[in-house]
């Protein structure tokens, strides 16, 4: 054991330093900006607490902060149990159609929240297709998609895939004998899940709680589309207001809110580490070949499971994607409109007339496929650096990984725009896709790294120890034993990162320039001139392509997760 940790210290510190530079440079820039009276590059700016005074005396800030906290809590209350149940059903039981479901459950992640929110409006908004049909049949509508409650509910359902991904990655690797033992001692499925499976994947569950809290804090699209019309103000929509409220953009105010968001990280990671210090002991991929025996659900179980999954599928996939699909093929919708009179293919034709969009599609594909692979490579190096490494280095790593997650994409994009502009040797890269890639790597860091770390943590130490005692260097142990074992985790991380890079929109707003357009950020400018029909067509194409890609990967590359 001692030998596995003693080596590679140089590598570990180098990786930590590289991560530190990448993560801390935007963070420190924002921190510095928050203590200034104007833009950091302006000679007129002086040090001062004016921005803090402004924010901390603004009643809107407190309203947004408390709403955001409630929103985050509501989101995890919905998504964590549902995601864990879904993962259990798909990986540990003989649920009918689970292979097919594996790809489908990820669909809510394919679209940026702003587009999804729009899909909900078309489907179940006050004049939505489903709403109007329901009203015609029953004479009333029992739901309202605007407001904090529906925001929490929908956001919770949207984030189920996040929890599912982390917990299923962990569950897949559990040997079945533990559960089997429980089953033979007479435990029911529910008891097995609660007392055996879930405790074993506690690290993954705790990760996803932490991640989803942060996701809720930096969520922008859903609160804008579903919260704003009901006057629900969260921190990110509050930041949005700050950009115009003083006339000339006031970055110091945005920076203060970003610092507040960052501050939330510390208690969160602290609690997470405390909880995990106990859970970390569970290493479940042993030297013996683990054969997964699936728990039989029985007929009643199958039906019950499918009813639950069906409801979830309808609400979180059929409604929003259906809404987008409808909008992509019509030129009018809503009250008093017969959709069939308004069918059109024009929305798709418009797509081909925009030159920047074609460049954007190529860039986005490059960034997500090639860039995504590079990102996963980087995450793997960082994960290995932290692997079986206790002490302050590992602590620093834990905090740094979640830090960028606290920052809205727009602010990360802005910070990197400045870094590439003002750091002399980075100048040549600013106008290339590399600047976007670096920002994207930071945006995807907590998603990708956590996925890899969670799998790494399950590799039993004796595997590495046996390699080491046979005379292998730590590098050989990692490259010949550890990495091959966690290959499914790496593939899963790559797919996750591809999806996230595909739909990312805020990060590119400040960074993209002629030749480096990305689809997500082009959507923002299409939104400004009103072309939501074009956006719907574009979004539909991207859902179809992403789903197709996933199915293909499933077919060709064997199954992604195995």
């Amino acid at each position, binding site marked *: 054991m001692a030998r596995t940790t003693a080596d590679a210290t140089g590598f570990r510190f180098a990786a930590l330093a590289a991560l530190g530079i990448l993560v801390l440079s935007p963070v420190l820039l924002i921190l510095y900006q928050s203590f200034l009276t104007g833009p950091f590059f302006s000679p007129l700016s002086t040090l001062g607490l004016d921005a803090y005074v402004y924010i901390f005396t603004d009643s809107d800030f407190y309203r947004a902060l408390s709403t955001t906290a409630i929103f985050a809590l509501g989101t995890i209350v919905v998504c964590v149990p549902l995601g864990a149940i879904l993962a259990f059903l798909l990986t540990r039981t003989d649920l009918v159609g689970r292979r097919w479901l594996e790809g489908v459950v990820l669909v809510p992640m394919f679209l940026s929240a702003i587009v999804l929110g729009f899909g909900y409006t078309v489907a179940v908004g006050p004049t939505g297709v489903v709403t109007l049909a329901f009203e015609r049949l029953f004479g009333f509508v029992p739901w309202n998609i605007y407001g904090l409650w529906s925001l929490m509910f929908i956001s919770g359902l949207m984030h189920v895939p996040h929890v599912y991904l982390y917990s299923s990655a962990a569950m897949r690797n559990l040997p079945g004998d533990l559960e089997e033992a429980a089953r033979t001692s007479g435990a029911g499925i529910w008891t097995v899940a609660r007392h055996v499976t879930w405790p074993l994947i506690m690290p993954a569950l705790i990760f996803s709680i932490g991640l989803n809290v942060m996701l809720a804090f930096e969520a922008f699209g859903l609160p804008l589309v579903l919260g704003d019309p009901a006057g629900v103000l969260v921190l990110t929509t509050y930041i949005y207001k700050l950009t115009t409220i003083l006339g000339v953009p006031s970055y110091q105010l945005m920076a203060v809110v970003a610092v507040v968001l960052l501050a939330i990280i510390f208690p969160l990671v602290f609690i997470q580490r405390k909880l995990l210090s106990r859970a970390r002991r569970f290493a479940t991929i042993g030297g013996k070949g683990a054969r997964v025996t699936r728990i039989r659900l029985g007929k009643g179980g199958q039906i019950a499971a499918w009813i639950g999954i069906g409801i979830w599928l309808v609400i979180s996939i059929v409604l929003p994607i259906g809404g987008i699909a409808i909008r992509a093929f019509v030129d009018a919708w809503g009250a008093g409109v017969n959709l069939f009179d308004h069918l059109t293919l024009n929305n798709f034709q418009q797509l081909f007339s925009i030159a920047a969009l074609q460049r954007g599609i190529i860039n986005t594909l490059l960034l997500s496929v090639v860039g995504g692979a590079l990102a996963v490579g980087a995450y793997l190096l960082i994960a290995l650096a932290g692997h079986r490494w206790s002490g302050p280095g590992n602590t620093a790593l834990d905090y740094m990984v979640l830090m960028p997650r606290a920052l809205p994409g727009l602010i990360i994009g802005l910070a990197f725009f400045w870094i590439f502009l*003002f750091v002399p040797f980075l100048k040549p890269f600013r106008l290339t896709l590399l600047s976007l890639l670096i920002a994207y790597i930071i945006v995807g860091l907590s998603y990708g790294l956590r996925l890899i770390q969670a799998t790494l943590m399950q590799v039993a130490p004796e595997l590495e120890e046996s390699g080491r005692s046979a005379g292998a260097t730590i590098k050989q142990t990692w490259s010949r034993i550890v990495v091959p074992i966690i290959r499914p985790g790496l593939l899963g991380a790559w797919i996750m990162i591809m999806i996230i890079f595909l739909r990312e929109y805020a990060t590119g707003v400040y960074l993209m320039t002629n030749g480096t357009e990305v689809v997500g950020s082009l959507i923002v400018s299409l939104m*400004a001139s009103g072309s939501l029909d074009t956006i719907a067509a574009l979004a539909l194409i991207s859902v179809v392509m992403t789903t197709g890609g996933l199915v293909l990967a499933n077919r060709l590359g064997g199954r992604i997760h195995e």
Partner: protein
Amino acid sequence: MQTLKVAACAAVFQSVIVVAFPAGAQQAPEGYPADYAGIVTAGIKEGSVNVYSPTDSEQADGLISGFEKAYPGIKVKWNDVASGAVYNRVVSEAAAGQVGSDVVWSNGLDLQLQLVEEGHVETYKSVEAANIPAWAQYKDAAYSTTVEPIVFMYNNKVFTDSVPKNHKELADLLVKKGAELQGKVTTFDPEKSASAYTVMENDVVNDNGFWTLIDAFGKAKGKVYSSSGQLREKILSGEHPFGFNVNGAYAKGWAKSNPTLTVVYPDDYTIAASRTAFISKDAPNPNAAKLFLDYMLSKAGQTAVAEAGLPSVRSDVTADNWDSVNKEAGGKLVPIKLDAALLEGLQATKRGQFFKDWKKALNQ
């Protein structure tokens, strides 16, 4: 060796072109001063022009291809910069000594003037200046290029009340039928959109009943949105069947392709917003920048933009222009002048007061 030969050939070929073509290109366009030919030659030598603009390249397509045809050899590099990001980009790049823009064209009129005041703009009296109205020019540096009327738009299938024809009638309707119209009316959010704020600032000047309207709007639980896209969908779907302060340049196009939408030019006054262009200080391609700015203001450039749906400031353009829009507005078109008032609107105290009143009216 092979590549060397190719390169040499290319060089020879290029010099042939340079000798053969410019005979035509070097001539100044018709009606321009003779020494303009020098700018043309220098501009072609620069080879490209970088434009920063929130106007998406779809709408700018005609302008771009028109310019590239007029000045072969100069490539237009369009940068889709979001409205809220234009100012930051210009200021930051200037501070870093890496100015990337030649021409900046934005609908954030106040911030465009602020950039002039802060010294980020090159003074250049356009050769087309005489053809551009005085309200659209600022200190021989910034020029408004479009006429975008700010209108009412409603869904004629859902909104069946008698349609208000002006701001006063809208306010009256909201007061009289406030209960019925709960959540049915919408407008552009001045707290999130800088251009929406600029328009409302002009509403305050033109309409002494503006706050009465906003007060009634707040009582009727009116909804606000931060992009034209959202406004359009909400009105189109009938969720909020009536909207005011909608960009009429867009609205007209939407109504054309969609008979459910009707545009009303308020008959008390119709504000004309615009997008303003200037040449950046220390622009990397200063001559190509001049050519592009002049082309934007020329009859040909204005026609191209007008045909893409953004009416021209010139009256000698056959496509939609100031006169035709003004006619539709019953002669009540009021431009947002490029002047000191716009800059005053940027002052924190003035904005603070506006937003205080705004919030008070909306959170009733």
